[in-house]
């Protein structure tokens, strides 16, 4: 990894307060293109709030965010997507009444061209081939034309991830992708994430609680506690970091 | 000058009645996420209960009023909540709003078909005398309307802020999840909100029908004004509803007296469009408002 390259994501001094609670307190970090960054921390450490602030679901009180060198502070979520940023949500966010194929096409169709242009374009926005490639990548071919709401939880998680990938390649933020997923599916998911990263050079930022998942997936880890960064480094460094151990196990 | 004072007072008086309707509307919106499009008909209907009490049951006026109030609270409060709102609350949103629109039509057409299409004479609550203060002729009715409305609003505000139940209601409106964890019976709080709305609507009905007579179509105009008053004042605040109601009452009267009769009804409409364009949270509203 060339340290001279410009970071794909630059977060500077983000803070967000809810009433009396300071959820995020002056967080700053860079993300280099192609890395898989893990964001971990105990519950309530502000990880999801931080994501929401970066991605436009929430407006931060202070701070700036730059994606590929462009400022995205205050931009709406749909504009961020146009820059090549995708995300998954903590709660499953597939569209239950649409087929898996439709879900993935829906995830990609707004990314290119104009809204008005799409009115006159092909019904699938020319994305069937690309969607099928992604479906094959996640080994979901047999579920292609099935209603997404009738899939198992783990399969929906895969569809969720596929949807986030359609906005890329570029930057994908994953909010607790391993939540509630059984071991076999977890291994499958991790394998697909790493493969996608190798094939397309997509940058991932992952919020997770599952230590084992994070440690084996990520190339770099940032630890949050009470809204602030307390440690940063490679997985093996973090594992042995005393501050981190205290924050997780201590009072 | 004295004429202006007259017009102002008269406007404040009608405005205070509008405010009652607007407050009820705002409460139900806040506490039950119900945009009640039938609010106008809720104000039209209780007067007819009173008329039924007088003509069909032969009750004296004071008893008929109580009868009307009780029936209104049961039908427009309990029944409305249990039969229409409660089953739809979890799925919420659009179907509920449409159901209230249909309810408004139902109430309006039912009165038209089953009672009559003509405006019905309605007994005066207050003597029709006028008193003169410094050259201005003021009707006792205007003063009494204002007094009654003010007393009710003060009573309601005290209830909401000073009593335990009132504060529980406010907690339910602001954050039902947390309120429930803290032991508040939110279903009951929501029910109380609907009861209060029915009561306010009934009161507004009793005060305004002597002026405009009881007619099945009253709901359209009163409903529109209640919505506008609530939005212009500030959709998530009760004092917004009060301010909005008074403002519209005064502006409407001033327009009718000094400016135009034909486009009198247009002024509140333009106020609404203006507010949504310039300050959507209303004159007294706060930007955050109630998070959806």
């Amino acid at each position, binding site marked *: 990894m060339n340290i001279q390259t410009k970071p794909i994501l630059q977060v500077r001094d983000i803070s967000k307060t809810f009433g009396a609670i300071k959820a995020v307190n002056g967080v700053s970090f860079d993300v280099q293109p192609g890395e898989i960054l893990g964001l971990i921390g105990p519950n309530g450490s502000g990880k999801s709030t931080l994501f929401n602030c970066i991605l436009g679901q929430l407006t931060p009180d202070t701070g700036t965010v730059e994606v590929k060198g462009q400022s995205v502070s205050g931009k709406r979520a749909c504009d961020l997507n146009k820059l090549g940023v995708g995300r998954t*949500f903590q709660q499953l966010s597939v569209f239950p009444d649409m087929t898996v194929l439709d879900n993935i096409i829906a995830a990609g169709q707004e990314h290119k061209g104009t809204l008005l242009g799409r009115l006159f374009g092909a019904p699938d926005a020319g994305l069937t081939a690309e969607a099928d490639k992604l479906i094959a990548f996640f080994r979901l071919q047999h579920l292609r034309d099935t209603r997404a709401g009738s899939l198992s939880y783990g399969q929906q998680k895969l569809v969720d991830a596929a949807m986030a990938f359609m906005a890329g390649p570029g930057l994908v933020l994953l909010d607790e992708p391993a939540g509630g997923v059984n071991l076999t599916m977890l291994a499958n998911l991790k394998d697909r994430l790493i493969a996608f990263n190798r094939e397309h050079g997509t940058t991932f930022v992952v919020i997770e609680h599952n230590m084992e998942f994070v440690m084996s997936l990520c190339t770099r880890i940032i630890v949050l506690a009470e809204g602030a960064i307390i440690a940063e480094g490679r997985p093996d460094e973090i594992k042995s970091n005393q501050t981190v151990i205290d924050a997780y196990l201590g009072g | 000058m004295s004429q202006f004072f007259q017009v102002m007072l008269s406007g404040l008086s009608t405005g205070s009645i509008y405010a009652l309707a607007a407050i009820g509307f705002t409460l139900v919106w806040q506490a039950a996420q119900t945009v009640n499009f039938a609010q106008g008909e809720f104000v039209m209907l209780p007067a007819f209960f009173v008329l039924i009490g007088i003509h069909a049951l032969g009750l004296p006026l004071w008893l008929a009023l109580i009868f009307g109030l009780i029936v209104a609270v049961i039908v427009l409060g309990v029944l409305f909540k249990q039969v229409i709102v409660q089953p739809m609350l979890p799925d919420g949103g659009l179907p509920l709003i449409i159901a209230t629109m249909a309810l408004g039509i139902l109430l309006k057409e039912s009165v038209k078909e089953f009672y009559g299409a003509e405006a019905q004479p309605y007994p005066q609550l207050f003597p029709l005398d006028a008193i003169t203060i410094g050259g201005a002729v003021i009707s006792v009715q205007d003063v009494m309307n204002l007094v009654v409305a003010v007393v009710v609003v003060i009573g309601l505000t005290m209830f909401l802020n000073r009593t335990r139940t009132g504060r529980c209601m406010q907690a339910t409106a602001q954050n039902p999840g947390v309120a429930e964890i803290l032991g508040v019976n939110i279903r009951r709080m929501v029910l109380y909100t609907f009861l209060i709305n029915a009561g306010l609507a009934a009161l507004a009905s009793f005060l305004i029908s002597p002026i405009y007579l009881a007619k099945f179509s009253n709901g359209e105009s009163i409903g529109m004004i209640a919505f506008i008053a609530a939005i212009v004042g500030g959709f998530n605040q009760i004092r917004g509803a009060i301010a909005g109601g008074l403002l519209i009452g005064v502006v409407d009267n001033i327009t009718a007296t000094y400016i135009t009769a034909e486009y009198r009804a247009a002024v509140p409409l333009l106020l609404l469009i203006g507010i949504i364009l310039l300050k959507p949270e209303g004159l007294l509203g706060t930007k955050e408002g109630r998070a959806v």
Partner: protein
Amino acid sequence: MLRTWKAPLLAILGLILLLLAPIGQGNYIIYTLCSWMVFSIAAMGLNLTLGYAGQISLAQAAFMAIGAYTVAIMTLAGWHWVVAAPIGVFFCFVIGLALGFPALRVKGHFLAFITLAFNTLVFLVARNEDWLTGGALGKVGMPRPSFFGFGTGQQISFYYFTLVIFVIAALLMYGIVRSPWGRAFKALRENPVRAESLGLDTRMITLLAFAIGSAYGGLAGALISPLVQFIEPGSFAVHHSLRILLMVVVGGSGFFYGPMLGAAVVILMPEVLRFTEGYYLIIYAVMVIVLMVFCPSGLIGVYGKLRDRFFPKVVVRADMQQGAQL
């Protein structure tokens, strides 16, 4: 809802029925059929706004008024319907954009109130501005258009003219719904936060849906002028916007054929069930309330539920098809 191959077949059957319907019928029935098609167009537009984009508009009658009065004024001054109608439709589209833009910026159902106010305003202007609209007396005697020498003065020829416009409007609507916009609307309805995070400009698509829906109202109004040949403010009051809303909701909001079904119910029922005179609005209101409580997707939704009950499509849980390999 309909299993895929049946849909185009039914559409063609429906078209054939419509082509044959007026033959041998009396003028009044043909007039009622025209009325049904005109209101179907208005309801189709409102369905786009309400059923697809999820916004309440209470001004569809006002947009009909704008279309109707534009056509009336222009055709009475000698312009052909073919020139007047698009102008009326265009006015409605632009006004829709102007009304929708401030209302849709804000969270909440503000569009409902703004359109309610707008409808009342249009009514007031129509009633007061005699010089423009003929005031309370309205406009009378709008000429029926003729095309390449074929007049539409006869009720049956006007029927076929209306049918052509109706089919064009329906095809356009079908084109909108089949395009990626249809998928975007679905996403918007099922999970608006996710839809926006996937790049959908939710505000813009909603605004455009409302503007197009309003334009359809204008088209319906443009047809009403020559159909009835008499328009007055009372025909476009708020009450009528509510009626069109009822059509969309009863038929099935969000379904392509919903508005046509709903318009048929609302227009034809009073004709068919004469004894319900005066009560039919009460019947609809009750119908809507019951539908909203039990089956908000209208009559088409009821059909779907009944069909699934008696002819269930057995769906094996998709993940089980390959065994429990996950």
